[in-house]
């Protein structure tokens, strides 16, 4: 089965073309945009929720997008084991939708942070991180005002016990609990992360640390 990537476009998404470009032009995967009003995901077998400010981040980041038409189908797809990846605003949407635990609140210093940060690959026992070494340090850009990950102590213990924490910040920029930058769900088919691997995948931009992540996602259905 070949990868058929669907990048969901919400009103206010602004990293949708970056994600499309990396999957389609760099990784040569069959890639299409999906519109938030679509009632299904068609023949797509990987769904990407891109970064941006869906619905203007009104109420809470991701809280309105989570009820958009296509999300009903995305939730069903994820619950049936489909691969769903949320980047930045996409991570917020997945948390709001209950597909990932926790929530992303305002950065501890109240600032929108746009910078390249150092991440620690916590484990590579996932279809998302299999091309990294555990403990490997990678540099990935972040650009968010609400990336401060928070969950209950019990949820954190459960995530640690199930190998759900994939990336942590080496120098925590936003106040995230346990330095968490990216996680997967319990059944390990849904992933969310605040940093932008799609912005670190093209050699011309000077950093390709994120490419292996997207490549392993594209190969996860092969």
């Amino acid at each position, binding site marked *: 089965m070949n990868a058929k990537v669907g990048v969901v476009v919400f009103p206010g998404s602004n990293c949708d073309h970056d994600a499309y470009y990396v999957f389609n032009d760099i990784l040569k995967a069959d890639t299409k945009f999906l519109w938030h009003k679509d009632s299904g995901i068609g023949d797509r077998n990987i769904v990407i929720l891109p970064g941006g400010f869906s619905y203007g981040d009104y*109420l809470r980041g991701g809280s309105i997008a989570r009820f958009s038409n296509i999300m009903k189908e995305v939730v069903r797809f994820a619950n049936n084991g489909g691969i769903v990846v949320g980047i930045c605003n996409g991570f917020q949407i997945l948390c709001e939708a209950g597909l990932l635990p926790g929530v992303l609140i*305002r*950065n501890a210093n*109240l600032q929108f942070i746009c910078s390249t940060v150092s991440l620690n690959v916590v484990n590579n026992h996932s279809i998302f991180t299999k091309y990294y070494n555990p403990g490997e340090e990678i540099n990935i850009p972040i650009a968010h005002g609400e990336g401060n990950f*928070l969950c209950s102590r019990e949820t954190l213990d459960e995530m640690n016990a199930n190998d759900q924490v994939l990336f942590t910040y080496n120098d925590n920029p936003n106040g995230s609990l346990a330095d968490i930058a990216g996680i997967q769900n319990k059944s390990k088919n849904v992933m969310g992360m605040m940093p932008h691997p799609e912005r670190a995948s093209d050699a011309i931009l000077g950093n390709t640390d994120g490419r292996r992540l997207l490549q392993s996602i594209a190969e996860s259905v092969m």
Partner: protein
Amino acid sequence: MYKAKVTISLRKSILDPQGKAIEHSLKSLGFDSIVDTRMGKSIELKIDAKDEEEAKRITDEACQKLLANPVMEDYEFEISKTENITK
């Protein structure tokens, strides 16, 4: 017709950086007696319900489904009778 005034606040256990920033600003203005500041949201709903019980039930459901995120927020609301609105 009923009016619901919903107040959403960060849960007490969660550090509220906006509240802290406001508090620092208040302190710098000389409000030394203000010892805690929490920042929240206020949302007003007009509800076409047959009685107050129904208005409460609808408001509570709206809070749980969309208006508040229980992982980080608490909510409370007051219901009052209001005049019919044309729109």
